[in-house]
């Protein structure tokens, strides 16, 4: 089956609705992030909370990429998720959108590298990898990760990779598998 790259009203609404669901979930995760950060701060590991929860924040990207199979769908899904979180009163205001775009492009890259032709376990894992690398690079600049000693830096990267793999990889695959069984949408590889 050939997928068209044009966005129609129904797709846009569906994408926004999915983004809103994720936005609501991100918003619920916010307090968990704060608690975890408070718990880890005294030993100087506060930023690890960000890496532990990273997977949840980047889920909307690969899932939208997988569901819509259009160029830009992962970026748009993740970005809209961040916009929704922003308007729900997420703690970061308009700056949320920057993270949304960075994470969206990061997960989109996984699908770009396979030429938007493969939608399977391989491209999902590739997306997990690009997400981890790109978002980590961004945190090295923005949150000053680049200054940490190398041991901590590697530990944070591994934590983030595992978290992203569990949520954006394994969990996304499980969700898509459930959707496949309903035959409501073409989620299989073309």
């Amino acid at each position, binding site marked *: 089956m050939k997928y068209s790259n044009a966005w129609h009203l129904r797709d*846009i609404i569906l994408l*926004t609705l999915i983004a809103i*669901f994720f936005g609501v979930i991100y918003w619920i995760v916010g307090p968990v992030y704060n608690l975890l950060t408070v718990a880890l701060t005294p030993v100087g*590991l506060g930023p690890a909370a960000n890496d532990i929860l990273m997977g949840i924040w980047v889920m909307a990207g690969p899932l939208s990429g997988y569901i819509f199979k259009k160029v830009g769908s992962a970026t748009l899904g993740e970005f809209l998720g961040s916009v929704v979180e922003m308007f729900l009163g997420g703690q970061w205001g308009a700056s949320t959108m920057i993270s949304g775009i960075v994470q969206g492009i990061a997960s989109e890259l996984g699908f770009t590298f396979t030429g938007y032709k493969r939608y399977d376990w391989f491209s999902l894992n590739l997306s997990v990898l690009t997400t981890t690398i790109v978002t980590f690079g961004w945190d090295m600049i923005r949150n000053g990760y680049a200054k940490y*000693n190398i041991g901590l830096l590697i530990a944070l990267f591994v934590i983030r990779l595992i978290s992203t793999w569990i949520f954006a990889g394994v969990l996304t695959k499980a969700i898509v598998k459930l959707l496949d069984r309903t035959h409501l949408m073409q989620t299989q590889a073309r």
Partner: protein
Amino acid sequence: MNPSFKFLLAVLIALEISFTSTWIVNLALAVIGLLLILTSRPTFKRLILLFFVPLIPASALAVAILLQSNAGVHFALVLFTRIYAYVFVGSAATLTTTVSDLVMSLEQNTHIPSKFAYGFLGAFNLLPKIVSEVNIIRAAGNMRGQALHVWSPQLYFKAILASLDWSENLAEAMTSHGFSEEAPRTYFKQIRVRWWDWLVLLGSLVLLQVALFGFHLQ
């Protein structure tokens, strides 16, 4: 100020201070952001939250720098103030703009396709329904002795099924009310870009460069 310009400015500022390390500029931006927030007359509770919630990530980053790196107190201070600048500048944009104003402005001033504008807006207005749907899904799971957590695929699966259903209905409803994807539209509420929008946008950016450069030389 024009909503699109306001958000563009907030994002550009946040982007720029991500790459610079001048804590005085960060602090000044946070103060300006705070003043703008105050003009929107926020509730006392929100104001308290605005002050205390960023304290958590800000101190986490600062403490981590002090304990886990050799970057020193100055960089810790930069990160600490950077988080506050992010939050206050970002909230100054969100707290003074409604979703529909932003979407209308994006459609009329930046010319994003109207199907995106109204598709987003239509879906966004379902927000309260979605929050209750998440609760319903979880309650339905609980009744069957099945606790649904953020890591349960069923939670997302059911959410996506509900989204599929609603998107179909909403798109049909919009089409039957005469919404057409490609047709040109007229606007009931016109949002214009005025000369002072350009002035504020460019002026603020120039001032920011001057300030960053000035403090960098010291």
